[in-house]
């Protein structure tokens, strides 16, 4: 598979009252086309900043992001960000939200395309609903559908399911895998949930605490659908938790 994203020596710091705060320090890695990479790190380590740098929402102090061989510095619809709080427009219906990004298509098709994607994520029958009429899980589906409808090459996911309850989060993961099996997107997922990373990703990069650096890389060799209870995946989970500095006693 060809390289899709190349992150080269990214660094970012912020000025604060207490002086310079290094958030991201010299991060480099590559993502292949169609690959699912999870970045796992402790909270407050600068994961979100790193993702915003890669997606182009924040300018780095140093380093570049190269997508499809060309430097990338501004967000565009080839890579859609899905964040933890979500950004489905509350003043638009589900259908209008899904139609929002469809500039490139002839206007006549917009509603049809939107409805097709609403059906893909299981929102058939809710096209005319407003976001405040939907549950948390359905809102996530709408967000996912709005991203997919513009056929992005890349999905940037920043703890997308962490605001949901455990059951709904698991359901959304399976939903995501089902969709990705059909439409091959490249995904970078930020999470603090090791189990989620093992469930979804092809490769897991463990980040250090701030300033964030890549500490270790784990390949996830298990075929899909994955059994999270298998001893091999439990073994991997413990190795990752150990990397994250969780005490041995606490996990065994």
């Amino acid at each position, binding site marked *: 598979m060809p390289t899709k994203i190349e992150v080269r020596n990214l660094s970012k710091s912020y000025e604060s009252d207490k002086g310079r705060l290094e958030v991201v320090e010299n991060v480099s890695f590559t993502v292949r086309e169609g690959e699912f990479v999870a970045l796992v790190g402790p909270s407050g380590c600068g994961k979100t900043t790193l993702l915003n740098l890669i997606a182009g*929402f924040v300018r780095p102090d140093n380093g570049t992001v190269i997508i499809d061989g060309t430097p990338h510095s501004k967000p565009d619809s080839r890579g*859609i960000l899905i964040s933890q709080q979500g950004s489905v*427009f509350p*003043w638009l219906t589900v259908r209008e939200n899904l139609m929002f*990004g469809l*500039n490139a298509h002839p206007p006549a098709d917009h509603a049809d395309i939107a409805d097709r994607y609403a059906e893909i994520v299981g929102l058939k029958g809710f096209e005319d609903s407003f976001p405040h009429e939907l549950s948390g899980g359905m809102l996530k589906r709408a967000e996912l559908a709005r991203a997919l409808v513009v056929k992005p090459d890349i999905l940037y996911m920043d703890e997308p399911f962490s605001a949901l309850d455990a059951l709904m989060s698991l359901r959304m993961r399976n939903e995501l895998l089902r969709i990705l099996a059909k439409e091959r997107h490249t995904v970078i997922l930020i999470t603090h949930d090791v189990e989620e990373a093992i469930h979804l990703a092809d490769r897991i990069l463990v980040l250090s605490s701030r300033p964030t650096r890549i500490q270790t890389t784990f390949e996830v060799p298990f075929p899909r659908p994955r059994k999270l209870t298998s001893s091999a995946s439990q073994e991997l989970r413990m190795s990752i938790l150990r990397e994250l500095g969780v005490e041995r006693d606490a996990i065994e």
Partner: protein
Amino acid sequence: MRHIKASLPSIAVIATLIAAWWAAVIATHSLIFPTPAAVVTGTWELIAKGTLWQHIAASLMRVAIGFGLAVCVAVPLGLWMGWVRAAYRTLNPIFQILRPISPIAWIPIAILWFGIGDVSPVYLIFISSVFPMVVQTVVGVHTIEKRYLRAAENFGVSRRTLFTRVVIPAVLPQIVVGMRIGLGVAWLVVVAAEMIALHSGLGYMIMDSRNAGNRYDLVVAGMIIIGLIGLSLDGLMRLLEGNRWVRWRYAH
């Protein structure tokens, strides 16, 4: 039924007030201050003569023109000041100085510039309702959540779409709040303005009733009618808040 029950206490308070008023007039043997019955007969007299409708129509017409002009100026100006930082920095100080000036203080200047006629009260209504609406609109733009602007940026929509599908709908609830405040102020001001310099309108009717033979029954009738119309105007603006375009803001 529940609705009626909920308003029972306030009906009781109003009834008590009217009874106390009645008793006080009788007890003091006042020759000038009217009893509630006198106010009702006075109102009936105004209705029978047909002058009441003329005064109400005159006041409402002035409010409609002055307030309408204020909306047309305040909304675009507020959006512009909210969106363009330089515009905000330049104009905000002036607005902050002009805003606390009571509309009543403008009356001499209004008379000087526009004379005694319909233009003066329209100008006073304009000047008094435009500021709260500008301020609310600016606040509305400044409080659009970043995640929505970021999502719009992500989908790479045109400036036009950004404005019509994100900025304006996001600010609309604040604009409606501003309109409610603005219309309330406008109604206060039209009556005050008419008291000073006109030959029609509810404010004029009140002053004229006093000057032409101490008809305090008509003065009080005018006051109550002003209160009731103000209440209806506010109710009308509340209906706007239930509109599908702003309802999302009040859900949850």
